[in-house]
């Protein structure tokens, strides 16, 4: 019987170890990429970053775009900070998923890393942000909302998750700013996750919530929520009767994008490799299907476009964060 116990422990150990033995890496000198590839999702499983990483892994593999073994590594913590710090010291066979947080963490003063510390490879997808009220709310339109806030910015409780300075929050700040509301005085309640904001709004514990469109969509279709405005420049497919901010006289567009980047100092060849593979990936049917299931929209930009895009975005975010009164001293 003792032997069988040992066997079981051995088995358990191997299982446990194999779950985390993703560290082996090849020397990507001559032929890139060599050995295992790692996609770092700087968050726990279950969110958009993790989903993007696993979708890439899946599409690369199933379409034989990349034959190397691809692992997804979760490095949660600090709004991406932990994962990206890790990426910074890795070989070029590591990539990491990113989003605007790679810019805002620094602008908010919570990180020393900037987007310039990495090699931009691509922007892959975007979601759009929505401002939502319960169906029976007296606020019927984005104008109603903004008028009310202009008179008294503190008159409404606005739910946002999971932290101030993220896209949910800043897209609302931008709308308010564009309309002429004093954004520093707004009354934000910060919830732990998008699900929590939905619950808070359903239970009417807050007046308004700002969240990504995918988080609002199901409740909208079920007739529980009214979406006042979305941040895209055209109406969103499937939500054809929801107006954009632009249509309602608030001139703004606000993508909630996700992209991918590599460690610093990748070579031209390595960048070209990913331009080729990623541009193929985003055209595949598998990718399109995953995008549709997740309510992501195509937003592909190659490495060169991404570099420029990040620079513009950084400036835009800097202004917004100043506007929200969140800038570091």
């Amino acid at each position, binding site marked *: *019987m003792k032997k*069988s*116990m040992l066997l079981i*422990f051995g088995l*358990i*150990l191997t*299982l*446990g170890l194999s*779950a*985390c033995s993703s560290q082996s890496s090849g020397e990507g000198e001559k032929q890139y990429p060599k050995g295992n590839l790692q996609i770092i999702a700087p968050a*726990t*499983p*279950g*969110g958009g970053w*993790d*989903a993007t990483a*696993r*979708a890439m892994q*899946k599409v690369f593999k199933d379409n034989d775009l990349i034959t190397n073994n691809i692992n997804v*590594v*979760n*490095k*949660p*913590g*600090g*709004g991406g*900070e*932990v994962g990206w710090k890790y990426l910074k010291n890795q070989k070029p066979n590591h990539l990491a998923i990113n989003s605007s947080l790679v810019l805002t963490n620094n602008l908010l003063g*919570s*990180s020393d890393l900037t987007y310039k510390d990495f090699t931009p490879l691509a922007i892959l997808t975007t979601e759009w942000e929505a401002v939502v009220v319960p169906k029976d709310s007296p606020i019927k339109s984005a104008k109603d909302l903004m008028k009310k806030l202009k008179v008294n910015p503190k008159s409404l*409780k606005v739910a946002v998750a*999971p*932290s*101030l*300075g993220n896209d949910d929050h800043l897209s609302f700040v931008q709308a308010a700013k564009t309309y002429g509301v004093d954004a520093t005085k707004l*009354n934000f*309640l*910060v*919830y*732990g*996750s998008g*699900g*929590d904001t*939905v*619950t*808070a709004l*359903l*239970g009417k*514990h*807050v007046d308004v919530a700002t969240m990504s469109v995918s988080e609002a969509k*199901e*409740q909208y*279709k*079920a007739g*529980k929520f009214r979406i006042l405005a979305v941040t895209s420049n055209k109406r969103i497919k499937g939500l054809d009767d929801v107006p954009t901010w632009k249509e309602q006289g608030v001139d703004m567009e606000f993508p909630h994008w996700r992209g991918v980047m590599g460690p610093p100092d990748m070579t031209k060849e390595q960048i070209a490799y990913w331009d080729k593979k990623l541009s193929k990936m985003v055209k595949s049917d598998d990718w399109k*299907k995953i995008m*549709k*299931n*997740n309510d992501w929209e195509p937003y592909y930009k190659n490495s060169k476009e991404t570099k420029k895009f990040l620079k513009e975005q950084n400036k835009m975010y800097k202004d917004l964060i100043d506007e929200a009164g*969140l800038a570091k001293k």
Partner: protein
Amino acid sequence: MGYNISDMIQGFHTALMPINLLFVVIGGFLGTIVGMLPGLGPATAVAVLIPITFGMDPISALILMAAIYYGAMYGGSRSSILLNTPGDGSAIAATFDGYPMAKKGQAGQALAMSAIASLIGGLIAVVGFILLAGPLAKFALKFGPAEYFLLFLFTLSAIVSLSKGAMVKGFISMAVGLLLSTVGIDQQTGVYRFTFGISQLSDGIDFLVVIIGIYAVGEVLYNLIGIDKLSSKGKKGVGKIWITKEQWKRSLGPILRSGPIGFVIGCLPGAGGSIASMLSYTTEKQISKRPDEFGKGAIEGLAAPESSNNAASVGAMIPLLTMGIPGSGTTAVMLGALVMIGLRPGPLLFKDSPDMVWSLIDSMFIGNIFLVIINILLVGLLVKILDTPPKVLYPIILVLAFVGTYTMNYSIVDFYLLMIFGIIGLVMKLLKFPIAPLILALIVGGDMEQNFRKSLVSSNGDLGVFFHSGISITLIVLTLLSLTYPFIIQWFKKRKKSADPANESM
């Protein structure tokens, strides 16, 4: 949300398809194993399986993932009972009486009882799901920040009952837990608190690391001090595998009461199995006729939390399936996986795909019955762990503790935390500080603080917000009752004692 009996039968039809039965078996077994291992929880297991579920039929994927989830609830208590090291937050309460039972040579009975209690709790919850999913989802929505704060406060009041006889030590332990819970980014303001520039600390200290550190590493260190004595102590014996009639009679009431408690708490997003099992334990302890036996191997003290945490895992499916809101880490991962496959749980799921919902519910019935069989069959094998010489067993536990910790966040910083908390655990054991209050306070502390502040922000600083709803007032009354109950009982006993001088005081 109209229910239809033919949908239900159709659901059984789907759930009983050989392929789905196979997934229930695989998921249940896998869940049991990851539940047993410290750190490797159901969330990790489901995440690892995501690439596999891609190609699966959505119903099968859902069945598989749910089976892992409740399977882990069965597995989680195995190591609590045998080694005093819970695999997960919801298995902590199983150490209180499970481990003393094992020490008394009733390991087999403890394992069997925990499986049976889990089964009954699970079945109660499945029935509850069928009858009450709609109204409960509505009920859960009534919980605003104030109600959540009061629920967490009520949970903390359990500490009084947990540390009876060592009240001061219990409160010190809780205070340490609350202090630890303030580490990390403050949600409402974005300020970094006590992170000392370590970015891994910005999301706070993972309570699982603390659990593994204090329980597993602490336990190993504690036993290391007397390891020579231990090995010469010889066989402890595992006792009978099947429970006695007397044990059954003592446990039935607690099991039947704890199932609904766990189920309802499980429905509240963010509350979950840890709180459910803890509240069931303390409820039983407080209303028991023999509260003194609790903590010393009372079988009903094991049965109650086991019934409750399994019921909570079923309850957690309600916000997920009816509103698309994940109520726990595992359901969040499940939601992500389901969305990838193209199934979006939410308010329309019951209307659009009743077949899917019913197949899942029916598979939970089957899965729970199957899991009790696996777990009882495993009893004979698992109790052998107790025969393993400490010099072999403890190094293995240490390795598992480190592996488990690493797989949670893939972070080396957690290793340091693990060792620090191991030493804290050792010191606490040597000085006889109760551990559960610390862990409990750490689990609920952060949410409690955030909800307190959100309540005050939304009421513009008016404390009246905590007395506004019926739920708030009920929770306040329950908290007060739970705080004063031990003293009331004592007072009554004293009065009785003065009438009957032969009676010995507690």
